[in-house]
């Protein structure tokens, strides 16, 4: 029986019982189940607290009977060689050689609350409310380290020291004070005064607690820029949030109507939230009017703040919704948009979930906040996929605009986890009533869409069958996908060899595990998605990241080999590889004649995440495409694939 499992690979051919159903326990189960017979005891009725990727993987394993899960189960007792598991309908005897206990350590919130400590919100991940000296709502009770949300050991130690000094009445500067002072040196007064000034100037930060505000500012970058400075351009891949401490900016959109003035934002406002929340590219170009002081907060820090400070989340959300409305429908004024935003409802859909069905009565108008959806219609024999809407787009207006028939003209399904904002019919009608111009614009779009849908439906048979399957494979999520025309591919595997040769012997392209549609193969290779799920859970924060040109790549120096990105990728294109020592030209030459240098056992090297990086360090572009003798391999962006599919289908 053990609490520790340093290396799952030393266990082979054993009957193992895992007690616990959190992330650590399930990770252990997944690592062990290949070579052992593993059972899991879960005291809840299902796996509640798992990360999406783990949830998916464990359910697959259970379905394939590689793992047996006992839910609503507790351990009755252990006998020699057996575990007696207590289930709702009786006790089951399970052969067991080894028991691993990973029941985890959650913040003892009920206990703390009984002590009188107030938490930030009802959210499961909310933290205790603490002052800048780590004092909780109970005078004299201090909460530090992991319990306060700071998981690193060094932070706990620093906090402890500060608290003790504080209790002894000695003024102590927090460890990060010099950093903050340096960062905010353009402001006057003590650090506290400077922080107050910032909180006063920027309404978004007005209700943020002291400590989280400090945390945020530590991660922020201050930009003091001259007039006419371009903060970011439309279609850039950056995703941080900017706040204006001083000055003014103008936002321009390429799809601007003639005579329309650019949007202007002044001191106290923030911008960049569209990309922050939806993960999509910048929707406009931002330029400073006079000289300005801007505060740039990276995405992760902002998301963390939003998770812990509900007022911030609400403020951001409502501004995001209001701005999306004004962006899509130029005729609406900001105040009305804000009103609508206040009344709008947010809803979340899982991958594959139906948002509404063809024929349902239309009762709401939808804005896609993050994720993407597909539009399908009933064809002769099956559902035909017509279109794909990414974040920032709207749908559902046709049924609301047609006075004669308020039924949905198509089915809408979420293609990945999607968050939508919906306006009920009444609010929608109110909006149209106030802004007749808008009604006209919407009608025009609606007519265009109806015609488009008709045309697409006619094009339907072969092309769309592929469309749907390609959608499933994330070709639409990608910004750059490798496709192989199998009718031209001579199976020479030069593409794989080229990938390996240009990446220190480790290929990121696998042909044999790809998916085949008709004669188009989507091999195992990164799609460089618009909304990369692999970026969501990187502990260092930026070991896997997006290049301004759009390529998603791994920074080997920062990668700690945790495997989260590989697990989160729905297309299985990230691999954890043992690092091979780099060989220089001489080494390769010697290797050719069999005199390879003394190699340390590769299995002892740590693993790092490896995936296609679009050969970003090579000016000529992806090696796979350049090395295909027959031109079977080609990379497409979503804009081009329609053409390709139509051509291939002919």
């Amino acid at each position, binding site marked *: 029986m053990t609490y520790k499992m340093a290396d799952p690979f030393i266990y082979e051919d054993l009957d193992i019982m895992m007690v616990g159903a959190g992330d650590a326990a399930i990770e252990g189960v997944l690592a062990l189940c290949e070579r052992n017979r593993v059972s899991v005891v879960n005291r809840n009725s299902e796996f509640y607290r798992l990360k999406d990727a783990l949830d998916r993987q464990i359910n697959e394993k259970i379905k394939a009977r590689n793992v047996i899960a006992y839910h609503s189960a507790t351990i009755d007792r252990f006998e020699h060689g057996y575990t007696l598991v207590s289930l709702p309908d009786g006790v089951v005897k399970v052969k067991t050689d080894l028991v691993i206990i990973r029941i985890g350590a959650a913040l003892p919130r009920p206990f703390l609350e009984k002590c009188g400590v107030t938490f930030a919100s009802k959210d499961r991940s909310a933290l205790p409310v603490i002052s800048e000296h780590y004092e909780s709502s109970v005078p004299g009770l201090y909460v530090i380290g992991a319990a306060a949300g700071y998981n690193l050991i060094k932070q706990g130690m620093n906090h402890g020291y500060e608290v003790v000094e504080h209790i002894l009445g000695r003024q102590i500067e927090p460890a990060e004070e010099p950093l903050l002072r340096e960062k905010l040196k353009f402001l006057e007064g003590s650090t506290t005064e400077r922080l107050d000034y910032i909180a006063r100037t920027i309404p978004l930060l007005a209700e943020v607690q002291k400590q989280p505000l400090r945390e945020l500012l530590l991660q922020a970058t201050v930009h003091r820029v001259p007039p006419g400075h371009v903060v970011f351009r439309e279609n850039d891949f950056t995703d941080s949030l900017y706040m204006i401490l001083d000055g003014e900016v103008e936002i321009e959109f390429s799809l601007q109507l003639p005579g329309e003035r650019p949007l202007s934002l002044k001191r106290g406002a923030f911008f960049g939230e569209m990309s922050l929340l939806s993960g999509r590219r910048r929707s406009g170009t931002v330029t400073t009017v006079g000289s300005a002081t801007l505060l740039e907060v990276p995405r992760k820090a902002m998301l963390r703040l939003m998770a812990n400070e509900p007022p911030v989340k609400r403020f951001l959300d409502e501004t995001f919704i209001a701005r999306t409305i004004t962006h899509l429908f130029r005729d609406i004024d900001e105040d009305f948009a804000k009103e609508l935003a206040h009344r709008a409802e947010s809803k979340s859909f899982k991958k594959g979930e139906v948002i509404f069905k063809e024929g349902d009565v239309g009762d709401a108008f939808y804005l896609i906040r993050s994720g993407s959806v597909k539009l399908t219609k009933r064809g002769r024999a099956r559902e035909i996929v017509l279109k794909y809407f990414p974040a920032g787009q709207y749908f559902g207006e046709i049924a609301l605009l047609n006075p004669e028939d308020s039924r949905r003209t198509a089915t809408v399904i979420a293609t990945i986890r999607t968050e939508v904002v919906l306006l009920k019919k009444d609010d929608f009608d109110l909006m149209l009533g106030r802004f007749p111009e808008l009604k006209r614009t919407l009608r025009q779009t609606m007519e265009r869409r109806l015609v488009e849908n008709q045309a697409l439906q006619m094009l339907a048979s072969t092309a769309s069958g592929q469309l749907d399957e390609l959608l499933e494979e994330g070709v639409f999520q990608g910004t750059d996908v490798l496709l192989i025309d199998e009718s031209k591919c001579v199976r020479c595997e030069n593409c794989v060899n080229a990938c390996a040769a240009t990446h220190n012997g480790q290929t990121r392209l696998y042909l044999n595990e790809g998916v085949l549609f008709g004669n188009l193969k989507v091999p195992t290779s990164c799609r460089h998605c618009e909304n990369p799920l692999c970026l969501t859970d990187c502990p260092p924060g930026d070991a896997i990241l997006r290049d301004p040109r759009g390529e998603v790549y791994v920074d080997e120096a920062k990668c700690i080999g945790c495997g989260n990105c590989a697990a989160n990728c729905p297309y299985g294109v990230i691999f954890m590889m043992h690092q091979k020592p780099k060989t220089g030209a001489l080494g390769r030459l010697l290797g050719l004649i069999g005199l390879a240098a003394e190699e340390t056992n590769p299995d002892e090297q740590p693993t790092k995440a490896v995936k296609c990086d679009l050969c970003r360090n090579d000016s000529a572009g992806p*090696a796979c495409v350049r090395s295909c003798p027959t031109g079977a391999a080609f990379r497409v962006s979503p804009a081009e694939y329609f053409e390709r599919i139509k051509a291939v289908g002919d």
Partner: protein
Amino acid sequence: MQGTLLTYGSKRYLWGGLIGAVALFVSYFYYSRTMTPSGSTVWGLVYGWIGLIAILVLMFLGIRKRWYSSHLGTLEGWTSAHVYLGLLTLLIIPMHAGFRFGWDVHTLAYVLLVVVVLSGIVGLLIYHTVPVILTTHESGMLPDKLEAEINQILKEMKHVAAAKPVVFQHLYQEEARRCRELKSQGWRILFTRVDPAAILAQRMRDLHNLLADIPATDQEGFSKFAGVVLQKTELEAYLAGQMRLKNGLQSWLYVHVPVSIAMVAAVGIHLLVVLYY
């Protein structure tokens, strides 16, 4: 679809080849009017140089193919150029020789060149026709998955056979042997047509004959076992078919490359002979 390799870059190499051929004809016409064509005239020498450079460029494809980090165009472009340049050499060399041939190393070099070009044309045809057939075969299952399935079935068979009469175990061993044989087929597979239906039918007959030796109690178990054997046979037939096609795709290279090396050797001797005698 092969059109794309041959029509790379808006058919630039096709046009280049055509224009080159026309230029060659015109120049040769002029040349043959002026003097008696042979390898030893100035013109002959010029053609010779062109031919030599062409051959070197053609051979370079072998290097460019493996030079993965190269920025010299794309491999598809190089291959397209290779095809048309190769065809042109069929013209250049005879023009260099003034269309005089004999039983010597010089003609040998040319004959080898012709063999190389012909094998190249065969290769183009193979590249045009086989991939589509292979894709249809593979739409059942990709080779790696097929192999994994077959191995899985073998494992299960071993497990089941262990508890049954000897006949089962013999059958299992027979299947294991077939599996090994399939893997080591190599060249023979190219020339044996794979007819999955016939193979399956034969196997069914064999199994049926075995049925007689099974005691009544195990008959049902044997039927199930036989079902699995047939499954495996079918998968193996698929795999054999795929392997055959894949080998076919590479087969022509085993003529094209060695003969081209032999040709270069012959050209080398030709140059030595010509320059020293």
